[in-house]
């Protein structure tokens, strides 16, 4: 897990928010601003962007003025990266393999990583869970899901 100083993390997030506000102001310049009596599409985003710059700027200023703030935030447990990788894998293979195999693989992967179960038990649970989920969501609740593509 990475250890990040809380102050540094807050500064980075404030910087990102300031950039988002600034980008909103700049991009709104390409939209018709309208008049104050008949505001156009660019009016409200410019206003919001300006306020976001002010607020995130004030937050950054507050952090700079603040002495100390050495507390550390630990982020990025390996399980978190594994989960995100698994979610991206599901997105990529969801329509090429189908719901049942992809979800079975996901549950298997999850159980194998998180639980002390033997791989054969994980495989059986994963298969049953994927088939059960398909029956519940697709058959009972009518959610359109691709079952198994190669069949």
């Amino acid at each position, binding site marked *: 897990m990475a250890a990040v100083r809380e102050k540094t*993390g807050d500064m980075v997030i404030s910087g990102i928010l300031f950039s988002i506000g600034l980008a909103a102001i700049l991009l709104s310049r390409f939209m018709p601003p309208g008049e104050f009596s008949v505001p156009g599409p660019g009016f409200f*985003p410019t206003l919001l962007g300006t306020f976001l710059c002010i607020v995130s700027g004030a937050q950054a200023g507050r952090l700079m003025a603040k002495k100390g703030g050495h507390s550390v*935030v630990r982020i990025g447990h390996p399980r978190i990266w594994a989960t995100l990788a698994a979610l991206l894998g599901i997105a990529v293979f969801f329509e090429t393999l189908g719901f049942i195999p992809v979800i079975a693989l*996901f549950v298997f992967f999850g159980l194998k990583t998180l639980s002390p179960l033997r791989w054969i038990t994980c495989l059986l649970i994963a298969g049953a869970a994927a088939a059960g989920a398909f029956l519940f969501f697709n058959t009972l609740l*009518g959610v359109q899901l691709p079952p198994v593509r190669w069949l």
Partner: protein
Amino acid sequence: MEVLQYLITGFSIALTPMNLFYCFLGCLWGTMVGILPGIGPLGGIAILLPLTFKMDPTASIIMLSGIFYGAMYGGSTTSILLNIPGEAASIATCLDGYQMARQGRAGPALVVAALGSFIGGTISIIALMLFAPPLAKAMLKIGPGEEFSLMVLALIIMSFVSSASVLKTLAMILLGLLIATVGMDPFTAYPRFTFGCLGLANGIDFVPLAIGLFGVSEILMNFEEMAKVGIIKPTFRDLLPQWKDLRDSLGPVSRGSVIGIFFGFVPGISHVVSTFISYAVEKKLSRHPEEFGKGRIEGVAGPETANNATTGTAMVPLLVLGIPAIPATALLMSALLIHNVNPGPQLIQDHPAVFWGLIASMYIGNFMLLILNLPLVSIFINLLRIPYAYLAPSILVISIVGVYGVNSNPVDIILLAFFGIIGYVLRKFRFEMAPLVLALVLGDKIEMSFRRALTTSEGSLWIFFKSSFSKVFLIAAVLILALQLIAWLAGFRTQEKEKSP
């Protein structure tokens, strides 16, 4: 008499087999997410939100509301048996509930909590039924200026009650409002921040955003602390309370109902604040205040009743004003908007089936919850025996199905992961997600009422101060901001003084 007729119609809608099934499903899922620490009503609603898109609007709001008030019931179970509040509003229940459980009196605590919840919830629905129609009639007269001021006040209150710093909360509100501007301009259909991408024409999809920020980020946070918990498991016989317990709870339940109903109307703070106020009132009125925190039944009865008594009246701002008072009702509002049902003063007139069907279903749901939370409590408590290793993949599968089911587009799963990690990082640095989502839901309405007000007044800002309603809302918003600023400056000065040698 007219109300009674509408209520009978509402029952005829809510009692259809399909609506009963969805009401039960909502209550069951709500109880489960209330019991399981770390999901809460927000995550619970967000996860099932997409499944409601293919239902009719009445069934979908019945189910989602069931999750909302079901979670309030379920939250008490873990507070009493484990000292773990399933959701924030159950924190006050932990204080005496867990002490009672440790003394072998978990049963009476659970029964009183369930009965109090039932009574508070039912009285709150009666209040909703009686207050909403006349208030809606009065609100039909307000213009865009008042509407804008009211929504600004709601967002400012949110920044006031948020546990994060004011600046962080304001930044989240502004970010939410800015995200809401992505897509077609509501007046001219001019594409904003779409970068030529057709997929962004309708704005950033709410479902992956809400599930990612609330559901997935919560799971990622919990992955860091997969602790095992010891469970006190009461049997059915243990559940029987003594006559003294019931007698001692009568006063707290009555007072908790009144406190909950009142605070339900107040945007942003209803659930959590009402429970602590009820706890404080009971302690103040008790002949043995020194025993509070050591297992007094009044400390369970009052807060649990107040908590559930807010659920009905918290719906009033949403259904009558079109302004979600709390984040959970913001998700309910998005569900209604997806079905082209606009919450606001016109809702009762335009969609009586939705309004009265919902009210009737809440009576039925409260009864279902009483059954689910009393005799079946020992079954539900088994949920806590499920290791997180099994629970987390199951919740993620439900989230994936929910997100994919909306557009049948796997890109939404990538968005889910993206918003999940954004939510995780922001929460690690103590940014709150609820103000962002609330602002996102209100964004379109705020912009429309602001621009409409300026157009009507030909650019005069005086329109926001013209009516007394608008004046009160804006003055309240300015006062709250000033209070926060003073508190912040005072804190900053004290900090500086402490540091100077």
